[in-house]
C-alpha cells in the first residue's frame, strides 16, 4: 500500500502556498517580456515625439535668434561699405578732377578740404598730396607734415600697388582714433600721385553704436588681426585686443554660435568689410532671448519624464497584476486537475480494496470458523496425546487469520472514500496507521523509525483523510531524503495549550538555503525528472485548510525537520 502514498507525492494537489515573489523563472521571464514590450510600445513614441519636438522648437528658437542678427549685420555691413565708398569716391573725384599742380597748391588744397568737410558733414581730419617718390607735396591739417617722405611705409607701397588703401584705426598725436583713406591717380606709365585723407572714426562709430544699446548685445569693428577698431561695450576701447578668435573670412554675412572667454554661449554675426581690413562684429548673448526656450525645454523635459514615470508605473502594476493573475490561475487549474486525478485514483483504489477485502474476508471467516470448530472438537474429544499439539496448530491458524483480517481492515480503513468530515482523532494512532503503509519500505531499506509520543496528548478535532495525506507526504519525503540505513524521528508534543505538534526529522541530504525558500511553491522540485513539485505545496495547502501551520528547518548534509502544528479544536468547530 505504499504506492498510493508515493503517487500522492507526485500527483495530488492542494492549496498553493503564500505568495513570495515570483515562484519560478517562467513567470519572471513572462513579467519581463510583458513589461519590456509594453514599455517599448508605450514609451518609444513618447520619447521620439519629445525628441522631435525638442529639436523642432530649438530650431524655431534659433531661427528667431539668428535671423535678426544676420539682418542687422548685413545692413550694417552695407552702411559701413557705403560710408567708406562715399569717402573713397570723393577722394577719387578730387584726384581725377584736379591736376597735380593744382593739388600741390596749398591754398587750393585748403579750399578743397573745406568743401570736402562741408559736403560730408565733418569726419575728414586732414588731406595731403604725395608724389610717386613718396614726398608730401601739400598738406592741410593739424600736423606739420610737409616734406615728409612716405616711400618706405607699408601704406604707400600698398596704395602704389593697388590704387586704393584704407588703413586700420590708429591714434595720432591728438590721441583721437582715426584711419586713413588713400587713392592713387596715374598721370603716365610710371608717374602718379596719391591723395591721402585722415578720417575721424566718430561717424563710423555712429553707424555701429546704436546696435549695442540692448544689454545682451554688442557691436564693433575689429581688424583682421583681432584689434578693436571701434569701442566695444564688452571688450573695451579702440585698439584693445579682441579676446576671441577672429572669425574666418567669408564674402557674405555669417552668424556663428560659440562660447565666450568665460565659456558662456554667444551668437556672433560678422561681415568682412570690402576693400578694408575691418570686420564688423555683432554679438548677442542668447540667455535673454533663449530664456523662454530654456523654460519651455525644462517644461518639456519634466512633462516627458513625469509621463514616462506614470506610464512605467502603470505598466509595472499592470504587468504584475496580469502575471500574478495568470500564475494564480495556472496554480488553481493545476491544483484542481491534480486534485481531481488524485480523487479519482483514490476512489478507484477504494472500490478495488473494498471488493478485495470482501472477497478475502469471506474465505477468511470460513477458515476461522473451521479452525474454531476443529479446536472445539479436539477439546470435546477424549484426551489424546496430540490434543495439545492440535490446539496449538489451530491457534496458530486463527492468529494468522486475525493477521490477514487486520490487513484487510487497515486497507479498507485507508482507501475507503469518505466525504471530508471532522472527527476526534488520536494523532498517534493515525501516525501509526500511516507508518504501517511505509513499514515494509523501512524494513527493506533498513531505515530506523523512532516514534516518540507523550502519554497525555489530547485528541484533536480534524479531518482524518487530510491528516493522512499530510503525514504521508511528509513521511514519504523523509523516506526519500534518507539513504538506506538512515534514521527518521517522529516526535509529538504540545508546544502550547490547544496546539499539538508533530515533527518529522530525518538525517538525510538536507535542503540548501536557496531551495528552502521555495519548497512550498507549486512546481518547485529538486527531484529531477520525476517530481511535479506539488507534494509539499499540497501539504502546505492542506495544513492551512485544517487551520494548522507547517515549519521547516534544514541543514544541508545533516537533515531536515518538518514541524506540523495542529489546533486541538478544529477550524470549523
Amino acid at each position, binding site marked *: 500500500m505504499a504506492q498510493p502514498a508515493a503517487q500522492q507525492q507526485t500527483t495530488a494537489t492542494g492549496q498553493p502556498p503564500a505568495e513570495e515573489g515570483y515562484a519560478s523563472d517562467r513567470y519572471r521571464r513572462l513579467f519581463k517580456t510583458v513589461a519590456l514590450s509594453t514599455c517599448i510600445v508605450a514609451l518609444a513614441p513618447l520619447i521620439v515625439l519629445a525628441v522631435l519636438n525638442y529639436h523642432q522648437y530649438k530650431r524655431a528658437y534659433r531661427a528667431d535668434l539668428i535671423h535678426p542678427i544676420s539682418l542687422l549685420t548685413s545692413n550694417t555691413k552695407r552702411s559701413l561699405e557705403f560710408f567708406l565708398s562715399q569717402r573713397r569716391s570723393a577722394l577719387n573725384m578730387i584726384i581725377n578732377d584736379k591736376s597735380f599742380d593744382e593739388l600741390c597748391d596749398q591754398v587750393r588744397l585748403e579750399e578743397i578740404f573745406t568743401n570736402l568737410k562741408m559736403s560730408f558733414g565733418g569726419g575728414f581730419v586732414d588731406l595731403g598730396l604725395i608724389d610717386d617718390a613718396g614726398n608730401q607735396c601739400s598738406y592741410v591739417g593739424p600736423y606739420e607734415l610737409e616734406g615728409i617722405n612716405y616711400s618706405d611705409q607699408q601704406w604707400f607701397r600698398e596704395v602704389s600697388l593697388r590704387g586704393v588703401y584704407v588703413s586700420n584705426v590708429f591714434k595720432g598725436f591728438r590721441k583721437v582714433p582715426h584711419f586713413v583713406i588713400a587713392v592713387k591717380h596715374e598721370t603716365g606709365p610710371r608717374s602718379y600721385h596719391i591723395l591721402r585723407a585722415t578720417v575721424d572714426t566718430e561717424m563710423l562709430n555712429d553707424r555701429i553704436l546704436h546696435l549695442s544699446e540692448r544689454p545682451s548685445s554688442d557691436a564693433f569693428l575689429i581688424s583682421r588681426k583681432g584689434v578693436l577698431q571701434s569701442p566695444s561695450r564688452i571688450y573695451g576701447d579702440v585698439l584693445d585686443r579682441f579676446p576671441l578668435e577672429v572669425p574666418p573670412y567669408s564674402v557674405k554675412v555669417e552668424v556663428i554660435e560659440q562660447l565666450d572667454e568665460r565659456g558662456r554661449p554667444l551668437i556672433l554675426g560678422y561681415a568682412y568689410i570690402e576693400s578694408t581690413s575691418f570686420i564688423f562684429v555683432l554679438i548677442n548673448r542668447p540667455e535673454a532671448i533663449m530664456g523662454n526656450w530654456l523654460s519651455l525645454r525644462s517644461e518639456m523635459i519634466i512633462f516627458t519624464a513625469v509621463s514616462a514615470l506614470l506610464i512605467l508605473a502603470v505598466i509595472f502594476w499592470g504587468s504584475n497584476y496580469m502575471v500574478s493573475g495568470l500564475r494564480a490561475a495556472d496554480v488553481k487549474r493545476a491544483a484542481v486537475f491534480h486534485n481531481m486525478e488524485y480523487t479519482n485514483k483514490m476512489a478507484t483504489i477504494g472500490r478495488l480494496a473494498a471488493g478485495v477485502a470482501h472477497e478475502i*474476508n469471506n474465505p477468511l471467516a*470460513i477458515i476461522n470458523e473451521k479452525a474454531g470448530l476443529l479446536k472445539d472438537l479436539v477439546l470435546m474429544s477424549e484426551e489424546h496425546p496430540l490434543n495439545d499439539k492440535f490446539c496449538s496448530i489451530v491457534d496458530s491458524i486463527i492468529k494468522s487469520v486475525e493477521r490477514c483480517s487486520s490487513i484487510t481492515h487497515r486497507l479498507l480503513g485507508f482507501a475507503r472514500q469518505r466525504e471530508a468530515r471532522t472527527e476526534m482523532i488520536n494523532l498517534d494512532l493515525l501516525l501509526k496507521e500511516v507508518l504501517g503503509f511505509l513499514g515494509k519500505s523501512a524494513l527493506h531499506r533498513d531505515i530506523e523509525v523512532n516514534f516518540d509520543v507523550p502519554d497525555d496528548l489530547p485528541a484533536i478535532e480534524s479531518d482524518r483523510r487530510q491528516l493522512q495525506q499530510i503525514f504521508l507526504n511528509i513521511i514519504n519525503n523523509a523516506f526519500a531524503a534518507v539513504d538506506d540505513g538512515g534514521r527518521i524521528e517522529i516526535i509529538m508534543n504540545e508546544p502550547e495549550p490547544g496546539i499539538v505538534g508533530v515533527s518529522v526529522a530525518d538525517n538525510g541530504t538536507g535542503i540548501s538555503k536557496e531551495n528552502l525558500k521555495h519548497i512550498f511553491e507549486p512546481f518547485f522540485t529538486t527531484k529531477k525528472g520525476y517530481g511535479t513539485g506539488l507534494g509539499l505545496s499540497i501539504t502546505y495547502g492542506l495544513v492551512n485548510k485544517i487551520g494548522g501551520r507547517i515549519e521547516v528547518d534544514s541543514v544541508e548534509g545533516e537533515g531536515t525537520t518538518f514541524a506540523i502544528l495542529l489546533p486541538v479544536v478544529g477550524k470549523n468547530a
Partner: protein
Amino acid sequence: MDSLRVLLVDDEEELVETLVERLQIRGIHAEGVTRGVDAIQRIREGDFDVVVLDMKMPGLDGLEVIGQLKHDRADIQVILLTGHGSSEDADRGIKAGAFDYLIKPVDIDELIEIIRKAADR
C-alpha cells in the same frame, strides 16, 4: 441445551454450517440458511430469538431481510455480519433496526456474547 434459538443467514454455506455446529456445541439451538428468502420463510415457521444476518447476499440482501423481518416479527433481534471491514454499511443496518454488527471473520465467543445481549433485550 440453552433455550436460545438462533438463525444464521449467510450465502457462504460452509460458514453457516460450521457456525451452526459451533453454536450447537456451545448449547445454542442454531439453524442455518443461505438465502434471504429462505430466512424469511424459516422465521415465519420457527420461533427464533436472534437472527445473525450477512449484509451482502445474492437475491435479498441483509438490509432487505431486516425490512421484511421488522414487518413480520418486530420482536426478533438481528445481528449483522459484514465482510467490508467498515462500519458504514453496518450503520445503515443499525438504522434499519439491527441490534448490532460484527465484522468477519468473527470470534465465536464475541458472537455468543452479542447473541445473548440481543436475546436479553
